């Protein structure tokens, strides 16, 4: 019998399911299957992990990499990421960032920076947890995150207001 009740499991799904799918999408073509297996593995745990979110992200990462290896289409997946980037985010309304543009910019980043940004922004993990997840230090995870954000800023064309604008005559 699982130690997680249906309410707790439902809350976990509401908070992390979409981020987990986005995270798994960085490696494989079938992120929903990978996340589903991870959730079922969590339910089968007699003793739930102390930190559920990092545990789920680790299981999803391992499952996604294994699925990519099984499919043997990892290289093609890298090429197809750009073609499928419009599926990464729901369409936005209002003044927010354009979803397709954000997806395209994110897909163009290196995998390590993409992983750090997704885990930080949508997964809500700390840099220490991201470092443990990717097998690096927290400082390395933070550096990848900063570098990726800076690259996204350039790709998205977000211009910073000049601190010393030229004086108009």
């Amino acid at each position, binding site marked *: *019998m*699982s130690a*997680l009740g*249906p309410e707790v*499991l*439902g809350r976990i*799904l509401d908070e992390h*399911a*979409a*981020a987990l*799918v*986005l995270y798994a999408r960085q490696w494989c073509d079938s*992120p*929903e299957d990978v*996340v*589903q297996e991870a*959730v*079922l593995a969590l*339910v*089968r745990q*007699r003793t739930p992990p102390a930190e559920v979110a990092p545990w789920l992200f680790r299981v999803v990462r391992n499952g996604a990499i294994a699925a990519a290896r099984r499919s043997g289409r990892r290289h093609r997946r890298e090429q197809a990421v750009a073609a499928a980037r419009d*599926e*990464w*985010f*729901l369409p*936005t309304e209002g003044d*927010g*960032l354009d*979803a397709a543009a*954000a997806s395209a910019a994110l897909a163009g980043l290196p995998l390590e920076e993409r992983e750090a*940004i997704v885990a*930080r*922004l*949508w997964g809500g993990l700390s840099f220490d947890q991201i470092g443990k997840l990717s097998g690096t230090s927290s400082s390395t995870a933070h550096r990848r995150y*900063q570098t990726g*954000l*800076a690259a*996204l*800023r*350039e790709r*998205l064309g*977000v*211009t*910073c207001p*000049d601190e010393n604008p030229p004086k108009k005559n």
Partner: protein
Amino acid sequence: MPGREPSEEELNRLAAALGGLAPRGGLNRDRLMYLAGQAAAEPSSARIGRWAWPTGTAALVVLSATLTALLVLRQPQVVVRMVYVPAPAAAPIEATTGADVSLPPRSNESPSMRQSRDPLDAAPRDDTPPTLRMIGGPPRLGPQPTYGQLRDAVLTWGVDALPEQTAATGGASSPTAPLGQRELLKALLEEASPHRGDAS
């Protein structure tokens, strides 16, 4: 201004803007909850049962290999056993002839010993095996044993089983007793010349 490094605040604003984007889920939440309930209700014994057959099969394979190796490499073991096989019972002489088979009593024989070696007396006591019954001694032959009786007695017990000479020659005075060559010649001469004896 691509050459200028963005500040921490600018990156935080961009991060907040990116965080406002909602990832596309694609998960069927209801189906996943159903599968989770099914997985939670699965007893642990069922999970253990998945490994029961492979584990049992592997254990039996190891056991079979071990026993086969022991069987092949084992030294032959010689076991010496004493087996007593009863000899086939010889046909009793008395039964074949129906005659009075009796050996003459020996001088240094007690009545009990005589009784024990007497096949006729031992016959009713079937508790003794036939082999031991024959060990008691040669059977007693009657005064006029047939050829078959003599043959069986000699083949079984040797020439000692033959009746004593006294029994055969004891009746020399009888008219039917056989004579020697010399005696026979003398008797014939006397018969041929009855007066010759008178002359001498």
